[in-house]
Each structure stands twice: as structure tokens, then as C-alpha cells.
């Protein structure tokens, strides 16, 4: 028994010693707390930032959903300085008065941003946010199973593909598909239009093999389904893994989404936050992130450093006419409940 105890204690001491040795750096005079999505930045970018800015002690944390981020940013004593929320969450955060106004004169690389991606409806003058990544939502399909060209959302209602269709398991994304097909706005708050979309999705349900999120990508790569509603970034990755796959943004229009960088109002380290933001806007850094993520970058200057294979792809380098027919989500506040109850009924069928 004694030996076991001493063994456990020894193991404990070794672990503690290991933990002790790798403490933070001592030169740092500034702290910086960043909250990002998991696996949403090139690790080398973080590594380089740490070496180039030894004065900043970077604490990097990750999360998995906008809702989770809202919880963290709303907590009384939130320590985060910089965060990467999506479009509709930014309008929520603005309404909650949790964001600091961004002084673009402190960002030397601000002009790298393509103006097409500024002034989006969720933050009209970019008072509070700087674009980081963007993309579209469309249909990822397997060309060996789908012969006809994919131009409309109605192919997801085609009985021919019964049991081979994947839908995205998220309220707004799935309702968007039905609303666009009906010719309504994806941000509608008209209960009748929402009810129509609900009926359409209920009608589609027997044809759907599964509702999923990132797992759909892997299933499409494995060839177990004919088509899936997918984000463009995931689509590029899937196409690279399996060349039989293709991606299309239907003619009716679709969602264009943004993940922007914000600085919190409660930030104690504003100076370090600006240094970090400016670093992300650097052309080479933005290109490194785009190459790693396969998500489109709003950074126009980054283009020359981007992998030519990516640039050649319509999925990454979205043509202007596709951008023109896309719309962004906005926060619907109280009316969002209409969507949630419709979605609950659809899933319960």
C-alpha cells in the first residue's frame, strides 16, 4: 500500500514540476484574452504573434457556438478582450451594449479590407466589428449520384433522391432554404410566411437521411449521401478530399455569413487588442488563415499570398453575381421565437 501511495505522490510531483516549468513568459507587460471558435486560426499565426510581440501575454480560449459565446461575454466579470462572433450575434451584442467602438485609425492595415464586405446590415458602419472570414451556404452534391445541374433549392425536395439528402441541423439555416425557395426573405417575421416554410420542411422530412452539422461533411466525403446543405468553407475542404463532389449556390439566393472580430466594452487591455486586430488584418497573416481554414477572406491585399488552387475555386473566390443574390441574417430579437417553435415542430414530426 505504502508503495502505491508513494508512487501516486511521485507521479503527482512530476506532473506539478512539468506544470511549473512551462509557465507564462516574464517579459510580458500586457495581457490579452482572446475567445475564438475551435480550430479557427492557423496555429502558426498565433505562434508568430507570440514571438513578434513578447510584450503581450496572449491567453487563447476556444468555444463552439455563438450562444456559448454570448453566455461568456454577458457574464458580469468577463475577462475577454477580443472575440469572433457571427453576424446576427454581433447585432445581439450591439443591442446588449457589450461592444467597444473600434477606432480604425489605430489599425494600420484596415485599408486591406475589401469594401464589399464592410457595412453589412448587422453592423451598418462597422462601428463595432472588423470582418475576419465569410462564406456562403449552398448545396454540396456528389456528381456521380446527381446528373442534372444543381440550380435550385427544389432539388432537395426531389423524390428521386429520397434518403440521400442531408439538411443542416440549425433553425435559421434550414428555414432559410425553405424561405428562399418560396421567394420570401430569410429574415421575414411574417407568421404566415414562416408557417408556409414550416409546412415545406415537414413535407421534405421523409426524404431527408439526417439533420447534422460538421459530420455531414465527413459523410459526403465518404459518399454516403447525394447532397447536403453546407457552408462554403466545409464544401471546399470536402471537394479537396473527394473530387466527385461539387458545390452550388442556388439561383433563388442564399445566406452570406460573416465572422467578425470585436473588442469587448469591458476590455482592460484595449491597446493589446488593437495590436492583435491589426496583426490579423496584415495581408500575409490573413492569407495564412485563409489557406488554413479554406474560408473566404475579406482581405483584398491577401490575394497574392493565397494558395492558387483555392483562388481558382468558385467556392472560395465567390463570383460577384453569387454575392449579389445572397443575403445576411440579422438578429430578429423577439420574433426569433417564431422560428424556434416552427423548428421544434418540424423536428418533432
Amino acid at each position, binding site marked *: *500500500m505504502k508503495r502505491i501511495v508513494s508512487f501516486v505522490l511521485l507521479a503527482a510531483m512530476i*506532473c*506539478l514540476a512539468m506544470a511549473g516549468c512551462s509557465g507564462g513568459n516574464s517579459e510580458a507587460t500586457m495581457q490579452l484574452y482572446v475567445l475564438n*471558435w475551435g480550430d479557427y486560426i492557423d496555429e502558426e499565426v498565433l505562434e508568430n504573434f507570440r514571438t513578434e510581440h513578447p510584450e503581450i501575454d496572449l491567453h487563447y*480560449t476556444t468555444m463552439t457556438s455563438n450562444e456559448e459565446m454570448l453566455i461568456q461575454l454577458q457574464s458580469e466579470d468577463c475577462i*475577454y478582450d477580443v472575440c469572433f462572433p457571427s453576424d446576427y450575434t454581433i447585432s445581439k451584442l450591439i443591442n446588449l451594449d457589450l461592444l467597444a467602438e473600434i477606432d480604425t485609425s489605430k489599425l494600420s492595415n484596415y485599408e486591406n479590407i475589401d469594401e464589399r464586405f464592410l457595412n453589412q446590415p448587422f453592423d451598418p458602419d462597422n462601428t463595432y466589428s472588423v470582418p475576419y472570414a465569410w462564406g456562403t451556404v449552398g448545396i454540396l452534391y456528389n456528381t456521380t449520384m446527381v446528373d442534372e445541374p444543381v440550380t435550385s433549392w427544389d432539388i432537395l425536395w426531389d423524390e428521386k433522391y429520397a434518403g440521400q439528402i442531408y439538411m443542416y441541423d440549425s433553425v435559421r439555416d434550414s428555414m432559410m432554404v425553405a424561405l428562399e425557395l418560396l421567394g420570401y426573405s430569410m429574415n421575414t417575421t411574417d407568421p404566415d410566411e414562416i408557417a408556409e416554410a414550416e409546412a415545406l420542411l415537414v413535407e421534405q422530412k421523409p426524404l431527408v437521411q439526417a439533420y447534422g452539422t460538421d459530420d455531414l461533411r465527413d459523410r459526403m466525403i465518404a459518399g454516403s449521401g447525394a447532397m447536403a446543405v453546407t457552408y462554403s468553407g466545409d464544401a471546399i475542404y470536402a471537394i479537396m478530399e473527394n473530387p466527385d463532389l461539387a458545390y452550388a449556390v442556388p439561383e433563388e439566393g442564399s445566406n452570406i455569413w460573416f465572422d467578425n472580430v470585436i473588442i469587448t466594452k469591458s476590455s482592460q487591455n484595449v491597446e493589446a487588442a488593437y495590436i492583435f486586430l491589426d496583426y490579423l488584418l496584415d495581408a500575409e497573416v490573413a492569407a495564412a488563415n485563409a489557406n488554413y481554414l479554406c474560408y473566404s477572406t475579406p482581405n483584398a491585399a491577401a490575394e497574392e499570398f493565397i494558395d492558387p488552387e483555392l483562388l481558382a475555386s468558385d467556392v472560395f473566390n465567390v463570383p460577384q453575381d453569387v454575392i449579389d443574390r445572397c443575403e445576411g441574417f440579422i438578429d430578429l430579437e423577439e420574433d426569433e421565437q417564431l422560428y424556434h417553435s416552427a423548428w421544434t415542430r418540424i423536428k418533432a414530426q
Partner: protein
Amino acid sequence: MKREHRFLKGLFIGIMLVFLYAPIIVMIVYSFNASRTMGNWGGFSTEWYGALFRDRDILAALEVTLSVAVISSIVATLLGTTAAIGIHSMKRRTRNVILTTTNLPVVNPDLVTGISLMFAFSILMVPQGYTRLLLAHITFNIPYVILSVMPKLRQTSDSLYEAALDLGAKPSYALRKVVLPQIAPGIVSGMILAFTLSVDDFVISFFCQQGAQNLSTYIYSLARRGINPKINALSAIMFVVVLALLLLVNVISSQNTEEAKAKRREKKRRRMAAAEA
């Protein structure tokens, strides 16, 4: 009849083992997959193991998990054992009241514990980050240590401790030399339990982790972009290490019992020899 019986028994155990270990084996196999995608075999490769040890985020999360688990299990064991000894010597009614109070957090959903700790920490202005995570883990670990030490205390007889006092031992000496050795197995199992619970915990950590991320919350955060095969590699390593530790502990303890048996036999032989002489 007997053969059938044995066959069914084997089948049952077999099915149980498959359910328990098949997922782990699948995960270990896929950690050697050259393709990044689950369900798509791209050939054998150890690249994820290499990538794992270059990934600063995962290693940082692992370090947080291990150091929180080690420190919180040691502190919880100290506090919990002391508490258990105290509770044991109370009068029956107070003892029951206190035991129910300490058991409550065990049956309480983690969600409630997590949210209430988050509020308590922010009201008490405990600094964000590692400190909170550690305090939270110590808090939820203590009841488990008490739970595993109490039965050992009940098994031991108080008269041994009293006898030690009668023979002139000071209370602290008697505690060290009489009480602790008797309850040692309970303390060790409590500590191991606390350690594993701490490594395991997600819900409570989730609410107390601003700025300090442990492995469970880190892995969860990858859900949007898909679980990275590096995580498979890490899980495989953790599984093998735990397996090795368990085997080692078992070997040591079985050696110990054999040694003890041998010693007892030796003593008996000597006594017999002395009696004969």
C-alpha cells in the same frame, strides 16, 4: 447443459467487452489514419502523433487538465479525509445531518453546481481563470473523498485508537500510526476517484473557465469545424497510459499481498520453531 451454460456466460462477457472497448479500439485505429476525415481510410500514418506534440493549444489544455486534476485531488483528499475523521467521531444525529449535507453535491446535477459556482465566484470576486477552475474542482471532489473514506472508518474499531491512547500515545501519534494506516485504502481510492472525476469533468469546468481552458472544454470547442484526428491520437495515448498505470498498480499490490503472505508464513514457521525448542 453445463457446456451451454458456460457458452452463454462467455457470450455475455464477450458482448459486454465489445460494447465497452470497441469504440476505443476504433478510435485508436483511426488515430493512425492518414486522412483527416473519420470513416475514410487514407492509409497508415503516425503524422497525427507528431502534429499533436507540435500543437501548443492542445498541450496547454492537457497541462491545465493534468495540473488541476493533480492539485485538486491532493487538496480534496487532505480536506476530505480530515472531514471524514471529524464526522466519524460526531454524535449520531449531527453525523447524519453533516453526511447528508456533504452528499448533496454528489447527487446534485453538475449543471446546478456549475452555474452556482459561477455566480458565487463572481460575487466573491475570485480572480478569473485557473484559480476558479481549480477551486471548482476541489469543491466537487471533496464529497467523493468523504464518501470513499467513511466506510473504511466504519469498518475500523475505535477501540484500537483508544487502546493506543491508553498505552500513552498522543492523539496525533495515534492518528498517524493507528487510524491512517487502517483507512489508507479508502484514502487512496478516494484520491484516484477525485483525479479521474477532475479529468472527466466538462459541465462544471465549462462555467468556470474564462481564460483557462482544460482538455474537455477544448475538445468540445472543436465541434464546429470537426474533431481533429490529433484528438484521437491524444485519447489513444491517454488510454494506453491509464491502462499501463492500472496494470502497474495491480502488479504492485499483488506483489505486496504475496510478500505479506510470505512474511506471515515465515513468522509462523519461526514461532513454531521457537515453540519446539
